Each structure stands twice: as C-alpha cells, then as structure tokens.
C-alpha cells in the first residue's frame, strides 16, 4: 500500500471550555471512584496464585512484531495479551527476569 498523505488543517489544539469541563468531570469520576472504595475492607492477603504451568516459563523472548506476549489471568480463564516491548510493563518484567537469571 502506498502511504496515503492527507492534508488537514488541524491546528495545535487550544483547549475549549468543553475540554476543561470534561477534564473536570473526569477528575470527579476518578475521585468519586476512589472515594467510593475508601471504606472497603482490605483483604487479608492478595490471594491470587499463578498457575504452575505458567511459572518460571522462561519465555522472555516471546517477541511477536516487537510485542511481548503476556498472559492475562481473568475469571474466565487465561488470555494472551500482546504488550509493546517498549512499554513499562514489558521493560520492567524483562529486566527483572534477566536479573533473576543472573542470580
């Protein structure tokens, strides 16, 4: 495919009244969400086990087009999720794994 170049007259965006208001509402949503959990009882422990077969799987080099495949545990089972290898999540996990291997 040839790259399509579209000329637009989108200019540097000046925040409008609506933007500011949206942002305020967004902040409210955040606060309200946090506040609604303020009195939620803390679980004694984070009781989430990692299934054995996923443990220690030395698949650091699970690269797919510059992505790292992570396994997402959900209540409906596990799913594979591709995370860009330059994302904080991928970078941190990789460096930790490498550190561990050196031990």
């Amino acid at each position, binding site marked *: 495919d040839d790259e399509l170049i579209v000329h637009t007259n989108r200019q540097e965006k000046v*925040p409008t009244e609506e933007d500011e208001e*949206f*942002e305020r509402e*967004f902040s409210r949503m955040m606060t309200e969400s946090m506040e609604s959990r303020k009195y939620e009882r803390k679980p004694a422990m984070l009781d989430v086990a990692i299934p054995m077969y*996923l443990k220690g799987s030395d698949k650091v080099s699970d690269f797919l087009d510059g992505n790292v495949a992570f396994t997402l545990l959900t209540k409906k089972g596990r799913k594979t*999720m591709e995370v860009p290898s330059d994302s904080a999540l991928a970078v941190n996990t990789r460096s930790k794994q490498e550190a561990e291997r050196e031990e």
Partner: protein
Amino acid sequence: EHACRYCGIHAVNSVARCVTCNKWFCNSRGNTSGSHIINHLVRAKHREVALHPDSPLGETTLECYSCGCKNVFLLGFIPAKSDTVVVLLCRQPCAAMPSSKDMNWDTSQWLPLIDDRCFLPWLVKVPSEQEQLRARQITAHQINKLEELWKDNTEATLEDLEKPGIDDEPQPVLLRYDDAYQYQNIFGPLVKMEADYDKKLKESQTQDDIVVRWDIGLNQKRIAWFYLPKLESGEVRLAIGDELRLRYRGELRQSWEDVGHVIKIPNNVSDEVGLELRRNDNTPVDCTHNFSVDFVWKSTSFDRMQAAMKTFAVDETSVSGFIYHKLLGHEVEPQVLRTVMPKRFSAPNLPELNHSQVYAVKSVLQKNLSLIQGPPGTGKTVTSATIVYHLAKINSGQVLVCAPSNVAVDQLTEKIHATGLKVVRLTAKSREALDSPVSFLTLHEQVYNNDTHVELQKLIQLKTEQGELSSSDEKKYKTLKRACEREILQTADVILCTCVGAGDPRLSKFKFRTVLIDEATQATEPECMIPLVLGCKQAVLVGDHQQLGPVIMNKKAARAGLCQSLFERLVILGIRPIRLQVQYRMHPCLSEFPSNMFYEGSLQNGVTTQDRLKKNVDFPWPAPETPMFFHSNLGQEEISSSGTSYLNRTEASNCEKVVTKFLKSGILPSQIGIITPYEGQRSYVVSYMQFNGPLKKDLYKEIEVASVDAFQGREKDYIILSCVRSNEHQGIGFLNDPRRLNVALTRARYGVVILGNPRVLSRHPLWHHLLVHYKDKDCLVEGPLNNLKVSMIAFRGPRRAYR
C-alpha cells in the same frame, strides 16, 4: 453494530462496549482531550466496559481479579514478579496491599488501564490517524449534546442534533423589561430549568452501602452518623438543614426508612455527616450496615421565587411605582427623600464610621433605591447594620433585612441587636434545632421563652415533657403559637431572614416598605425579588460585583443570565454603587494588587504596615516588610500514573511545610486558612498534613482547608493558596475567573503564600499580572522554605486575549 456511536470507527480491536448502556465507542480522541470511550463513560457516569468478542482478548468484561470490581477508573494491571503474567486489580483496596516478599505479584507496579484519559493502547487499540480522519468528525460540544439527548432517548444519533428544538437555548435575560409580565416570562423558565436540574441531580444521588453509627442528641432525637463519599466529588452540595432519606434494606430486619435533616456536614474535623431523624420509634439502631441515603429534593426555594415574580406582576401593591420601574430598567426621575438627617451617623454600640461609610449611610437615607459596594474588609456589615438602625428610627414600619446565606443573616442579626433595636431572626423550621450565637433572637426561641402567654407556656412545657400533645391540645397549641409569633413579629423593629425565608408563610400578612439585602451580589434576581415584593418602597442592596456571584448549577440557565445578580444588572443600567473605600483587613501590600486590578486603585488602607506585621513570628518572608510570596512549584504533575490530575502532591507537601513553619513560629491553627479550588486537593491536603506533618495531628486537623467559595465573606490571618493546576495542555479551570481570584487574594490579614506553577499560570492574562506584581516585589521564589531564592523564571506571557 459495534461502531463507535460518536465517530463510526468499527475495527473490533479499537472499540469497547459500555456495559451499562450497551453502546460501543472507540479509543480515539478525535478532536477532544479524552478518547471517545472515556468521553462517554465520564459524560454518562458509566463505569463498566467489555471488549469485543472478536478482539484479541475476546469477550472480556474488565474486572478486578480479586474482588470483582468492574469500575474501570479503578482498574489497573499488576505484573507477576518474575513471569510474563498479569492480572487486573482494583486500585483500592486490592492493589493497595503492600507487596510482600513471598507474594507472586508486584503491587508497586500497578498500571492504570486509563492513561491520559484514554485506554492503554495495547488493550484497546487507538485507531490510526488515517482511520480517524476517515471517521466522522465530532466535537466535544456535539458529544455533550448527544449525551444529553441520550438521557431521554437512548437511540438518538448525531443527526438528531440538527433537528429543531434540540438546541434551543432559553430566552436570555434582558437589561430592561417592558413590564413585570415580561420579566416573569423570562425568569420563570430559567428558575424552572434550575429547579428541574437540581431535582434530577439530587434524586440521582442515591448512595448505597452506607454504614451508620447511631447516637442520641441532646433533644433526645436519633442521630445517624455516616460517611457520604458522593460529597467528595463536589457534584452535590450538602448544607446544614438539608433533608436526606435514610433507608434500611438489609436482611436483619424488615425494611425501614425515615427522613431527617442534616445537622453536620464534613469539615476539617471529620468527614462524617450527622442526620437528625424525624421519628424516634422503630429505628433500626441494632443495624449498622446495608443502609442507603437519598437526597430529598425540596421545591420550596424555587416555588417562592416563582411566587414572588407572580406577585410582582399581578399585585400593584407589591412594590412602589418607583421601585417597579427601576427594577424593570425604566428611566425614572430620581426622587430625593426629604429625610431629617440624624445628628450622629454612627449607631450605638457599633464602631465609628469612616468618611466613605458615612457618605454611604447619608445617601442611602435620601434615596429610594441604593447600591452599596463593599470590597473585602471595608466594613460592609457594620455599614449595613448602621443603615438599618437609622432606617428603623426614621421610617415608620418594620425593616426587613435579608441575605442569601444564613451565616450573613446571623452576623447582621448580632450587629443590629447590638444597636438596641428589637430584632427577630426568622429561621427555616429545619434549622430550628441548630445552635447559633443569635439563637436567643430567633422567633421560635422567643416564643419558647415568652412569659406573657401563660396557657401557651403550659402547653409548651407539657409538650416537652411528654413529647407530644393530645390532638385537641395540639390544635390549641398551634393557634396560640401562631398568635404569639405574630405578636412578636409585629412588635419587632427589624425582622431578619434569608431571601428565601422572606417567603415564609409566617410573613405573608406583613408589609415591609423598607428592605435591605446584604450579599445581594450572591443572590439570583428571582431570589432578591422574594423580600422585595412584600411592599417595598425603599430598597438597599449591599454587595460586591467584583466578588463571586450566585451559584447556578444548570449551565443553560447560567448562560442565559440567571447567574447575573440584580445588583449587577442595576449597575449596568447606570445606577452607580456607593463604594466603601477603606479596607481594614489586609496588610497594605496584600491589598495593593486587588485594589489596582479590581477597584480602579480606589481602595485605601485603614491599617498600616505596622498594624499588620507580626513581631516574633519567625517566618522566611523573602522581603520581610512584604509578608507574601508566590512559591514556584514546577514539578511535573503526576496525572498519568494516577490519573488524578486534580491533585498536586508537590503543592500539598509544600503546603504542609508552610503550615508547619507557621505553627512552629507560634501561629494558631485557627489563624491559618488553606484555599484550593479543587475538592480532590482539599481532601488530599487534609490527610497529607495529618499523616506527614511532623507536629501533632490535632494541630493540622484544626486548620480549615476549603474552596474559594467557602471562604467568601470571611477572613484569616494567614492564607495559603494551592493552585493545583500545573498542566501544560489544559486550562486552569476554576482559577480563570477574576472574581474568584479576587476573593482568594483578599482573605488574609497578615500574610499570603501562593503555591503554583508560574509557567502555566502566566499564560493567563490576569495571573500574568499577578506574577509580574510578585516578581516586582521580589516575592516570586523557589526552592526549599529554609532557603528561598528569588525565581528567575521567564514567563511566556498570555496566550490569548482575556475573554
């Protein structure tokens, strides 16, 4: 169809479904500052999201793996310590667990799903630039409209926005009106819009899962104490006297509900709400959990405004001809009253008046309609009280004195009482139980304490002892009470109540030809009409249109002009307010900027530098004679990691340091006030100080932290202003209002500390002026408190002309 309801983008990996309303939205920002899905969630107040079945993760509802919480604003990924495994956890409480050694998960790496008001791009793909350009271009304005439409018709589309009728703005207010019918025809719908909005808002604010602590008040009534998280968002306001309905729907007993009125709202001491219940029987005091709270909407104040406007239109005796035409903006020959001037202008037991105050009193006494502008600290209340004193002495009949807020009415009551006049303070029934310094002047207390009606006294005593009366006694009691009330009101020189209170049925038979309204710039026009239409011939409005105006919740109504006070309109019509010109509050260096910026430089100082310098206070003011500084807080805001752009941790921490320094140098907590425009920052500062301050918790607890609006009309010795906004791309929101800035800057008597980002703030003309002012005085500083350095920061200057 899974196409984005805003822009039509339908790639399966770029869209997500709102679980609440089943509509699909994409993760592109288009022309707005948040992605479409986030825009929708925020606008519609929906919180739960599912991914498309054909997307890489398949049909997945986003939820906390541990507790099942589905609120996406709380969810984030937690990685395993050593494996490429992640789970979704809620930020509170699940991810707030400290990460322990033997745990597989690293909770410190919690990564929110929403980053920069957009879902993480690898969870929901952001459509490419080209896809976005091909899609329907929708503006933030259209999004708002569409969401508004969905509230009535969930299937409405963007095309429906074009249909006539949808976009109808109400008829805006005018400067002049042909007659009182036209006046009513314009204000009536605005008041109704505001009422409808208020009703909808209140009634949608039910809060479940309330945990109640039971108590019994001194008056033997049941009191329920609980936390109301909804208040923190600032969406609903709760005031003392408001009604709430408390319901129990748990399984421990049969369902129960009762209405009560609020006797305490969250403050710096505790966030608890106190609700005094109406009934005492059958209260589920053995239960603590599974309660719900509804806001009970009352139409009283709106009904009274509508009634006042109707009276204004149909009843020729509601106001004098002069006032009638003046209020409508007609040209009328000025009338000079032939008043016999008092020999002394100051009133007994009130401070001596200065020249501009005397001038104000003099001219008020000679005119039928006057406006008095009282800039901060200029002795507005004393002037008002003195005016009322003279009006009561000169005119026959009683003077009605009102203000929009109870606080202001109480202050005036105290002052006017001091002059020796016979005053009665009329309060709403729901506020009768509240204690105030002027309780003994309230109508109900005066009835209670009267000793002339023996039979009524007996019944009152009986009622107190038994809790209730037989129905025949109750009937008798009511009749006697009414007669006693009327007698007390009739013999009073001055009757005081809120503007809305002037519509109380107990005053319906009264005529007041002399009316003074204080804080008149904080009342809406229809609100001001309530006291005026009781027969007004001479009106005095006191206020300051350079400070905050009335609060209107409905934006359409506000835009149409409901937020403009009568005082302001009369000023625009050419009635010159008499300005009080000597301020007695601020250190002269603190009044300089507000005087120049908001009062044409006309404010004079009634206090000297010496009066306002505290000796022995060891505080590092950069210029010792000038107790003020602007502390530059440049630190990048942590919006992306927490998603909470409304709070500014750097400023909160600096705020604590300033406070600690003040306290250490012997300043009392009650002398300090912290102003911040955001509710999020307010509660953050409160808890931050208590948990991180090196001094005793209680000291920090006593410091009042509140919004600008809450500080209007009040003062503190020292004020710290935390601006919060430090975002390059967004506006500065609340701070972009000159009147709010004026109020914030004029609360302090001895010193002001402003914490903010000069780079961001200087792009706004008004703040640019302020920063230049601080810089000129060598009061723009940076660095730690024990080593403040004059900041060399260059401002970029205003970006666009001030609106």
